[in-house]
């Protein structure tokens, strides 16, 4: 491998890694803070991609303006699901919530199939598809933008959790919900907010996917596997751990793809997953408490 190929693969891997991290952020947040495995995460992800396709290809909206429509809508969807579906069953066994979210996955997927059929879709990227070069590295504006937006979202979530009072209260609730309530923190409202942010992050990642990949309604399960892979490799340590895991998998995929035939790439990544599970139940970077 010469140095130019290496640098190109490095850049591709990093960009892919930030998109992967964005795909996993919402899942990691709801699992880490609320202990809820959002089975519907990837269905919502692809719903967002399809909405983006509709807005851009159907209504002629600029791809970057899709964020302004999709993210508020997904915040509302997330708040609604937590408030009206999950909260009423919060005292039931965890499997009830899992089933409920699996049901939501089916509903969202069926709805998407009914509206958009099974056809693969590609979003028209007018104005942001130009190719750009920096020395030996060549990429396209849309890929660079998607990666940058993923990185900014991760940084934003990190700063929210670490530097704001509401973010600290969220982490406190993850640590000890009873003690947080004793300090007057409204854990019910905070749970709604946390789930809403988790779903909004799925919405954001869906747009990033729409900006970089071809997708179809039934394809979302692949993204669910990817998101889980990143959460398991990174553990529920922090946003930084999720980003690191996303980058590790993005880079692994890119470099393995360079060295081995295509069909081996996923094999290697799942071997990495198995190693993570065996070596360290909580992921490579998890802290002992397994919390955001």
């Amino acid at each position, binding site marked *: 491998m010469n140095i130019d190929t290496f640098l190109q693969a490095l850049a591709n891997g990093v960009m892919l890694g930030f998109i992967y991290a964005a795909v996993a952020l919402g899942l990691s947040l709801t699992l880490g803070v609320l202990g809820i495995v959002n089975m519907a995460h990837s269905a919502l992800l692809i719903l967002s991609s399809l909405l983006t396709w509709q807005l851009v290809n159907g209504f002629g909206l600029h791809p970057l303006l899709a964020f302004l429509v999709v993210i508020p809508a997904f915040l509302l969807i997330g708040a609604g699901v937590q408030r009206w579906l999950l909260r009423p069953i919060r005292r039931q066994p965890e499997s009830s919530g899992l089933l409920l979210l699996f049901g939501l996955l089916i509903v969202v997927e069926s709805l998407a199939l009914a509206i958009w059929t099974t056809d693969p879709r590609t979003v028209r990227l007018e104005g942001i598809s130009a190719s750009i070069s920096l020395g030996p590295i060549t990429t396209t504006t849309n890929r660079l933008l998607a990666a940058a937006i993923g990185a900014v979202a991760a940084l934003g979530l990190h700063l929210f959790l670490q530097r704001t*009072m509401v973010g*600290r*209260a969220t*982490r*406190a609730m*993850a*640590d*000890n919900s*009873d*003690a*947080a*309530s*004793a*300090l*007057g*923190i*409204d854990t019910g409202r905070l749970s709604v907010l946390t789930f809403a942010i988790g779903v909004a992050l799925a919405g954001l990642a869906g747009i990033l996917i729409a900006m970089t990949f071809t997708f179809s309604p039934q394809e979302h399960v692949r993204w669910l596997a990817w998101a889980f892979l990143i959460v398991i490799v990174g553990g529920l340590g922090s946003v930084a751990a999720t980003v690191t895991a996303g980058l590790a998998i993005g880079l692994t995929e890119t470099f393995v793809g360079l060295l081995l035939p295509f069909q081996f790439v996923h094999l290697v990544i799942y071997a990495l997953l198995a190693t993570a599970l065996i070596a360290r139940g909580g992921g490579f970077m998890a*802290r*002992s*408490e397994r*919390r955001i």
Partner: protein
Amino acid sequence: MNADIVPAVSLEEVEAGYHDHDRVLQRVSLNARPHRLTAILGPNGSGKSTALRVLAGFVRPRSGFVRLGEREITDEPTHRRLELGLAFLPQGRSVFPSLSVQENLLLGAWHIRSDAVRVRSAMEAAFDRYPTLVSVRRRRAGSLSGGQQRLLEIARLLMTDPSILLIDEPSAGLSPKLADLAYAEIDRLRAEGRTIVLVDQNVRAAIDLADDVYILAFGRNESSGPREQYADLDRLVREWLSGGGARVSD
């Protein structure tokens, strides 16, 4: 007890439970005198922790009243009670282990968070009061020793300078030496003029510390009176055993 003093906080004929049909508390009444330490004692399952949770607003009574001074607060949520000066330290370790010491303290000031000046002076007061926390302020609270964690919990509880403290099992899980430290701290809080309601399994330590004692059994008032009345500990424990204080869960 002196009838003409308005209690700092009180329960009147409270019925409460966690599920539809259980009656953990049955017509329980309790008066905590201002600036005094009231201990609630009793065998396992007597409802003493539940009584404290009703005072804190974590459990709503089915009937009866909760009062703060002369004001009825039966339906006030936990955060409103905090604003009124009533703070609750739950049972067991309650620091937020993945947050720093400083962040734990900041969250103690949650309901006054919009008042930056007050939060800052409360933070300074906490570090003045517990200087051992200064050098570890950036460390994760989970990495502190058991005794330091207990001090941090109390420091966090004091961030809004509450006048009434509800404390559940302060010595649970601590070594005898650290338990003594916790009790000394509670004694100091009372000496500062705060009203304390203490629930404890450690009967001897609680009676040593208390001004007034309430004994609950099977979710009912068993007896109450000044500390001196409970000097004969052995007899008390014998009564619990013969009275069949054998229900296991609380």
